[in-house]
C-alpha cells in the first residue's frame, strides 16, 4: 500500500515508532568532515525526518549499526563474565537499495559462513527493519546496476522524498500506522537503471593475474590507510581485543573491533611475518574477495557497487576501474590460450 505524508505526519510516525525502536539514518554533520569547512554524512540515531540527509551519499555505510566499530562482547572478572545486552528496542534503518543488498552479504558472512552463527551479529540483525530511500539519480561513482544491487527487496517502507513530503510504499504490519498518519496514494517503485560508472566482472579470476604489473602500480599508489574498507558496506573483518582496566587490571572486557586487510598488521604473525606486506598484494586480495572469492562460496558477488571506496580514496584509486582492468586481463588471458 502507498501513502503520502507531509513532514509533520512522517514525524508523527517516527515518534510512535521511537517508542519501541531506535531509528538510524544518514545525517549530515556540519563541520565534521576531515577537512575544515566540510561536512560528514554518516549514520546516526534520529528523532525527526528533517535530520535525514536524502541528497548526499553517506561516507560510512549502515553496517556499523549491526556490526559496531567497537563492540564489547563480554565483561570479565577473575571469577566470572557477563555478556552485555542490546536492549529491547527494534532498529529501523533508513538506507539506499545497495545498502539493503549489502546487509544480505553481511548475513552470509556472519550467519551462514562455515556452519556457525555469530550470535552477537544475529541479536542486532534480527531487530532491523529497512526504510529504503529511493535513489532519484545515480551518483557518479555508483555502479549498482553492474553489480545487480540497484533493486531492493525485504524492506518495510520504500520512501520517495518529493514535493516537501514523502511518498511511501509500505509492507506488512506498519501499514496500519501509515494509514493513521498519511493519505492513500499511488506509487510505482523506481530504481536506478543505469550508472555512469560501469564495471564488467570477470567470469573467473585465476592466479595468472597475480604477477601482473597493475599490482606493482597499485603498490606504488596505495598508502594502506584502509578508508576503502571502513567505508565499504560489506567489509566485515574484525579483530579481538582484551582490555584490562587500568585502575583494576583484574577486570576487563573483550571487544570486537573492525579490522582491515588494507591496514598494517592484518596478517601479522609471530616473529614479525606477514602474508601481504605489499600494498598491491592487499589491493589484489581485497578485489578478489569482492568479485570472485565470496562468489565461489555464496554464488554471487560481495561488492554492491556503492562506490564509497572510490569516493573516499585519498590517492584517487578507483576500485571500479581496478575490476575492469582485471576483467580485461582475464579476457586477454583467454584469448591467448
Amino acid at each position, binding site marked *: 500500500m502507498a501513502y503520502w505524508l507531509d513532514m509533520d505526519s512522517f514525524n508523527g510516525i517516527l515518534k510512535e515508532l521511537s517508542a519501541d525502536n531506535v531509528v538510524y539514518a544518514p545525517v549530515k554533520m556540519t563541520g565534521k568532515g576531515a577537512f575544515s569547512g566540510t561536512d560528514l554524512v554518516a549514520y546516526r540515531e534520529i528523532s525527526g525526518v528533517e535530520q535525514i540527509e536524502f541528497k548526499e551519499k553517506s561516507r*560510512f555505510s549502515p553496517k556499523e549499526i549491526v556490526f559496531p566499530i*567497537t563492540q564489547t562482547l563480554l565483561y570479565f572478572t577473575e571469577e566470572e563474565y557477563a555478556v552485555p545486552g542490546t536492549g529491547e528496542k527494534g532498529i529501523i534503518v533508513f538506507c539506499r537499495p545497495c545498502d539493503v543488498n549489502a546487509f544480505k552479504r553481511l548475513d552470509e558472512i556472519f550467519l551462514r559462513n562455515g556452519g556457525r552463527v555469530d550470535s552477537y551479529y544475529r541479536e542486532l540483525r534480527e531487530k532491523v527493519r529497512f526504510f529504503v530511500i529511493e535513489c532519484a539519480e545515480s551518483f557518479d561513482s555508483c555502479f549498482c546496476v553492474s553489480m545487480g544491487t540497484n533493486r531492493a527487496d525485504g524492506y518495510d517502507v520504500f520512501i520517495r522524498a518529493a514535493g516537501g513530503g514523502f511518498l511511501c510504499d509500505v509492507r506488512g504490519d506498519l501499514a496500519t500506522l501509515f494509514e493513521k498518519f498519511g493519505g492513500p496514494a499511488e506509487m510505482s517503485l523506481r530504481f536506478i537503471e543505469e550508472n555512469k560508472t560501469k564495471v564488467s566482472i570477470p567470469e573467473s579470476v585465476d592466479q595468472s593475474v597475480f604477477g601482473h604489473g597493475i599490482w606493482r602500480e597499485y603498490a606504488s599508489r596505495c598508502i594502506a590507510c584502509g578508508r576503502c574498507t571502513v567505508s565499504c558496506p560489506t567489509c566485515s573483518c574484525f579483530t579481538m581485543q582484551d582490555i584490562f582496566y*587500568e585502575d583494576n587490571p583484574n577486570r576487563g572486557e573483550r571487544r570486537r573491533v573492525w*579490522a582491515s586487510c588494507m591496514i598494517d598488521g592484518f596478517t601479522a604473525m609471530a616473529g614479525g611475518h606477514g602474508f601481504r606486506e605489499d600494498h598491491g598484494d592487499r589491493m589484489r586480495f581485497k578485489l578478489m574477495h569482492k568479485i570472485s572469492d565470496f562468489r565461489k562460496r555464496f554464488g554471487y558477488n560481495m561488492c554492491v557497487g556503492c562506490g564509497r571506496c572510490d569516493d573516499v580514496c585519498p590517492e584517487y584509486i578507483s576500485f571500479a576501474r581496478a575490476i575492469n582492468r582485471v576483467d580485461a586481463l582475464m579476457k586477454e588471458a583467454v584469448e591467448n590460450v
Partner: protein
Amino acid sequence: MLDINTKKLMKNAYRITKHRGITALRVRVLGGGLDAGYLDVIKAIAERFGNGKVHITTRQGFEIPGIPMEKIPGVNRLLAPVIQGLEVEMGVGIADVNGGYPAAGTRNVSACIGNSVCPFANFNTTELAGKIEKLIYPNDFHVKIAVTGCPNDCIKAHMQDIGVIGLVLPVYDPGRCMGCGACVKNCRKVASGALEMVNYKVRRDHRRCLGCGECVLKCPTSAWTRGDQYYRLVIMGRTGKKNPRLARTFLEWVNEGAVLKVIGNMYGYIEKYIDRSLPKEHVGYIVDRTGLPVFSQEVLQGIELGSLGRAAGFIPFGGYTY
C-alpha cells in the same frame, strides 16, 4: 621644479627610490588573494605610468616601479577600484578611494591560502585577514601581521610582529576507533607525539598537542573529528639589522575574539610607549624596551582566555645580535 613632501609620499604607499624623481607604488593585497580582474588594473598602472614591470613583494602585495613622482595623482585615480574592492568593501574605513592609500606603516596583512584550498588549513585565513585589516588599517605604526591556517606556518607567521596560527581541538570518539594507529604514528612523525595507544585506544596529551588537526585528517573512521576552532598567537618575530629572531608563542588555544582584541590593544600599547624621537619604531623594539610584562598588561586588557587559553608569562626571545 620638483618639490615633493617625501613624508606624505611615503604615507601614500609610494617610496623614495634610488632614481631621482621616480617612485614605486606598493599595492596591498589583503590575505594574498584577489579576483583576477584586479590584475588588469595592476597591469594598466605598470604599463601606463611605470616601467612595465611589477614586483611581487614578500608580503603578498604588488610593487609597481618606475613611476614618475608627478604621475602619482593619475596613478591613484587608476588604483581606485583596487582600494574600493580590496579595502573599502572589506569594511576598511577609507574616505577617498581616488587618493591612493591613506597609510603605509601597518603593512599588508598576509595569509596562506587557507581552507578554501588547502586540506591542512584549519580555517578561512582570508576572512580573518580581512577582519584584522578592518581593525588596524589605515595606521602609520610599523606593524607586520600574518595569518596562517595551521602550525605548518606556510605564511611564515614566525617572522611577523603578530603571527596568527589556526588550531583545531580534535575530538575523539573511542567507539569509532579501530585502533589502526594511523594518528599515533603520524603525530609522532610529523607533529609532536601527543598521542599514544592505551588499551588499543588513543590517548591525547593536551599539553603536547599542537592543534594541527593531522589526527583528524589521518583517521579512516572519523573517530577523530573537528571540535572548536582556536588560535595560537606568536609575537615579535623579525628580520632586520638588530637582533633578528623568530616569533615566540604568546597565546595559545584562544578564540578569534581574543586574537582581534589583542591586536587592537597592541596599537594602544604602541601609542603609549613608542619612542617618538625616532622616525619610526618597530613594535618589537618597543617590547624589548618595556619588557613583556608591560606589553602583556596592556594587550590582555579585557581578554577572555577561555577554559583552554593560556598566555606566556615569560618569553626568552633569543635570536642573535650582530
